[in-house]
């Protein structure tokens, strides 16, 4: 549903004499409808820039970005593009516009010109999805970080987009808040939402169907999580971690134990090691 063709981008203005460094360097990729894509990369590798190209907040300097066939460089289409591709940012405080939870969730449908009765329905539904119905009348300043982020997500859900991009939306939250947000994402996935998850937490990325690894404005790797995380050394070279399980198995393999190289979930790691121990005992 989102398609990039030879897209490049830098932050220079037209009047700048010296062109700035390319932040996105000739990237082509496609995000399929209904997929769950994680984007990884070190700080400044261009993840947020890439995300902002997806819904026309930024326009490519060369190349083409299309959403359901609509070119983001066409200003008349921006409104229709943005209602299809929602975006949740890092700091929930800077995304909430209104002084009560329900007013804020209503903001996007109001902008879309939806009928008042339908807005009410959407608001109720969105708050239900993120589990914040109880806080409808609260002021955002009375909520915890995780709750605020869930309100921000509800604000996007109420827009009824086809795809939601989460740009490090769990980065400022404590483990509890992070779990709340991840549970919400899981629920959205079940309802068939296309999800793009930008994150520094590897154990969040393992749940994706596909992982894109960014490095200095280039797509370094693009594959299912198992394949990505089996390349432990390369990931470390470009400043990334691997899930703890993968790290442990990698060290054990280095020490000469025969274990599968593509384990990413704690449960399967535990199982494999248990099997190994049993085999050793039998000998």
């Amino acid at each position, binding site marked *: 549903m989102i398609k990039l063709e030879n897209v490049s981008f830098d932050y220079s203005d037209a009047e700048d004499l010296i062109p700035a460094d390319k932040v996105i360097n000739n990237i082509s990729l496609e995000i399929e409808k209904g997929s769950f894509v994680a984007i990884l990369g070190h700080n400044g590798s261009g993840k947020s820039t890439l995300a902002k190209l997806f819904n026309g907040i930024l326009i490519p300097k060369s190349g083409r970005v299309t959403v359901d066939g609509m070119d983001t460089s066409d200003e008349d289409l921006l409104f229709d593009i943005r209602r299809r591709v929602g975006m949740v940012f890092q700091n929930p405080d800077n995304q909430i*516009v209104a002084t009560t939870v329900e007013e804020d969730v209503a903001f996007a449908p109001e902008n879309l010109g939806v009928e*008042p009765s339908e807005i009410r329905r959407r608001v109720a539904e969105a708050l239900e999805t993120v589990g914040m119905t109880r806080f409808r009348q609260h002021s955002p300043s009375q909520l915890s970080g995780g709750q605020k982020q869930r309100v921000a997500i509800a604000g996007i859900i109420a827009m009824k987009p086809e795809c939601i991009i989460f740009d490090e939306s769990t980065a400022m939250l404590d483990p509890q808040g992070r779990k709340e947000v991840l549970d919400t994402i899981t629920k959205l996935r079940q309802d068939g939402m296309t999800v793009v998850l930008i994150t520094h937490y590897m154990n969040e990325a393992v749940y994706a169907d596909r992982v894109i690894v960014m490095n200095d404005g280039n797509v370094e790797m693009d594959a299912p999580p198992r394949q990505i995380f089996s390349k432990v050394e390369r990931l470390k070279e470009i400043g990334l971690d691997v899930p703890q399980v993968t790290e442990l198995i990698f060290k054990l393999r280095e020490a000469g134990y025969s274990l599968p190289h593509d384990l990413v979930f704690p449960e399967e790691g535990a199982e494999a090691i248990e099997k190994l121990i049993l085999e050793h005992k039998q000998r």
Partner: protein
Amino acid sequence: MLKDITLGQYFSGNSILHRLDPRIKIIAVLFFAVSVFIAKNVYSFAFLLLSVILLTLVSGISYKIVLKSIKPVLVIVIFTAVINLFFTKADETPLIDWLFITVYPRGIKTAVFMIVRILTLIVGTSLILTYTTSPIALTDGIERLLSPLKKIKVPVHEFAMMMTIALRFIPTLLEETDKIISAQKARGAGFDEGGLMKKAKAFLPILIPLFISAFRRADELAVAMECRCYRGDEGRTRMKELKMQGRDVTALILAVLFTACIIFFNTLPTTLSI
């Protein structure tokens, strides 16, 4: 410490005053204010006092809270009363004529009426507007009352949006100020010592980070609003429609009648007038 500041001072509730259309309340307050200023004899002032007491009862807000609203203006009230008491001159025998102090009966009358005038104005407008109308409803009401001005290109919607965002970010920025103050104190900054200049200088290290962060927030908020398809007033609907109801029409009629009553009372003959 800063978090205790509340703006707008809205007390949620479900009284008839709370449920009235904000537009009607704004208009009613205008009628009320005009009435307070044209009141000029004992009947009209008594009527003002009576109606404010009635408003308090109707609002369901405790009289203690209502009395508290008077506190900040107490100084002004006393000041006005004193000025009127001592500086009103009249062609009558003074009640007190001692050294340079002369007090005429007319001065006492004026002072008392002034006190009633200021107090009823403050309490009345608080009860009708700020205490019983949420800030968001108030901005909404203002936007819609002024919406005819959109035709002559007055940015009414943008102004209302600015108000809403300001209201939304006041607690956030206060919290942030608190944090910055703590951070600077932890680095040994003192804010409570020294003369005025020194104190003012001490606040510079608070203001600068606060401004920088406010600009960053504004930037992020603008992008987030764009992501939610905001494009100003164009084609925008509202979840909470303001619909005039029977009670709103009644309230409007009452407001007009109220002013009419004051005008009528003003014409009644009495020596107790200004």
